[in-house]
């Protein structure tokens, strides 16, 4: 048995406890999220959802193919998803969630749950035989540069972290090696900047021309959080904000 029902903001799957159905359900989820977001879920989210389904089949229903697993995924707000997975088992013992990482080495069974815990925003029990996990689809980090009135506007989106440090460096260097005399880093769509990427910014500030002020570089539209970050690290004295 495999039944699927997709609505505007919700996906419902009811299936027998067959491992083969897990892949099918995963495809369904990918299509659902892609329909809502225009982009597919992250590897981490896929991993967590797969673990939850496998756990329901193998441990919740004890591998009994006649037993049913139900999955409900709801798009509760832009980029935010709630996933409920229900099986016919008694559910996890009290105190099993959240799994403590310190116990991982000794507890053979909780490994999958540890993965779900670290790959989701929140992982909790939701009644007998049911667990709930929350996910946020992170904004893609992109670097777009537009030249306006002799100033290059570099407009990143999402989180500027170590994973995109090289792309970030290239975006800054593209301006530095161009003929455009000044640039601004428009942070209106930036969620956060990690210390590695702050170092990339500082490296730019130390480059010939930028340091002397011959090539003007400034930051604009910092969120209160980013503003705090620049003050805490005292980089507000290095950059024109």
């Amino acid at each position, binding site marked *: 048995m495999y039944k699927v029902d997709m609505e505007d903001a919700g996906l419902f799957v009811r299936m027998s406890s067959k491992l083969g159905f897990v892949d099918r359900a995963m495809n369904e989820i990918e299509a659902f999220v892609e329909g809502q977001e225009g982009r597919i879920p992250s590897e981490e989210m896929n991993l967590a959802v797969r673990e939850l389904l496998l756990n329901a089949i193998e441990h919740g229903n004890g591998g009994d193919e006649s037993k049913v697993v139900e999955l409900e995924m709801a798009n509760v707000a832009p980029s935010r998803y709630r996933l409920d997975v229900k099986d016919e088992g008694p559910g996890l013992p009290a105190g099993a969630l959240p799994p403590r990482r310190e116990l991982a080495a000794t507890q053979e069974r909780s490994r999958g749950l540890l993965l779900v815990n*670290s790959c989701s925003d929140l992982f909790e029990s939701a009644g007998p035989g049911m667990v709930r996990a929350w996910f946020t689809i992170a904004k893609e980090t992109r670097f777009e540069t537009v030249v306006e009135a002799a100033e290059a506007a570099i407009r990143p989106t999402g989180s500027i972290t170590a994973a995109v440090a090289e792309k970030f460096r290239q975006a800054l260097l593209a301006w530095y090696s161009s003929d455009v005399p000044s640039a601004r880093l428009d942070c209106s769509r930036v969620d956060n900047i990690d210390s590695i990427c702050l170092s990339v910014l500082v490296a730019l500030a130390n480059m010939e021309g930028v340091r002397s002020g011959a090539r003007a570089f400034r930051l604009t539209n910092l969120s209160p959080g980013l503003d705090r970050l620049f003050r805490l690290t005292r980089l507000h004295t290095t950059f024109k904000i």
Partner: protein
Amino acid sequence: MTDSLRILLTDDESGLRTAMGRVLGGSGLVVDVATTGIDAWRMVEAAESAGNRFDLLITDVNMPGMRGDELVSKLRAEGRELEILVISGFGDKSLLVDLMRMGVNDYMDKPFSAGEFQDKVAQICERIRTKRLAAMRTRNLEGRLASLSSDLVRYRRGFDEMKSQMELAVRSYQSLVNLPQEVRGLDFEFRVRALHDLGGDFLGINPLKNGAEILLADVAGHDMGASYVTILVKSFFENNKDVMADGERFFQVLNSGLIEQGADRMVSALHVLIDYGSARMVVTTAAHPSPILRKLGFPSSSIVECWGDPLGISPAVAFSKWEAPIIPGDRLFLFTDGLPSLGKYDPAEGRRRELSESGIDRLVASHRQRPLREAVDRIWNDSLEYANFNSNDDLLLLGVEIAEECHVQG
């Protein structure tokens, strides 16, 4: 725009030569004059050997001795690259086609006005200037490519060496948090959890003659570069034991060392000097989360207020200093930013709430009555539990307590 261009004007008719020379000179161009084809050829050759070549040759066709078309043919055969403008009075289309084939860049039919001549030359000069610029860009690009490929060779050569260094770095990093077993006059307890094999958190305690100094440092990143800088911090701190610089002076020296290395890594750090002689402690911070002080017998704890620039970024840095008297039983809790950044997701609000320094302050206060070891244990566990045991940074917590015996030293 055209002031650095050199022009060679060749014509056997002196009237025309003078008129054209006057027009060119009026445009601010440097003009040399030849009266015969053979003279022109010699002058081109001499200029090239002198490294001061002509950019443009303007020549008449019909001249005694070496004709203009012969001159062009000879120059091109020798591979001379200057632009050539031919003045022709014949209106002979087949000659014109031949000249173009030889590599003449432009021509003018006689008669023409001074204005037409001036426009034509200006047009050619503009073309020369554009070509020069393009050639310069190509040369720059080639230079950059050449330096890139030589870099690549160096990188490849260094790769095997790098792999073994990487393994060494992992081992070195794992031995970074290696505190002395005992420090006279000071009890301490710490918890540490590294996110990766390589990381940037450092904790060190130097026992001093009359007290101790503590350093917490957090280098940006979790890669080999971070590990390298962390080792640098460690070696500076170990040397400080002998130099006995205070926190501010130590940070100035460390900052210069980091800048000199050109690591471009931001380092935040916290230095605590405990001096039994004066029964005081001094806290200096470099953009690091502030420690939390629990005074013995006080119902609450407090966040130490000080500020300072991060290290490794700018040669000019400044730090404030926080000082307080100490008595046995006073405690200080120090942590890197992984701890206050621990967070949990609130499904109702759809956002993450961080534990923050004030959250740790509350935990310190609520466990203030417990023995040091137990207090550190509880603060550590409560912090992790707050984040559902999820963290995405290195975590480090150190609790220190002024011991009774410190009085004996003073």
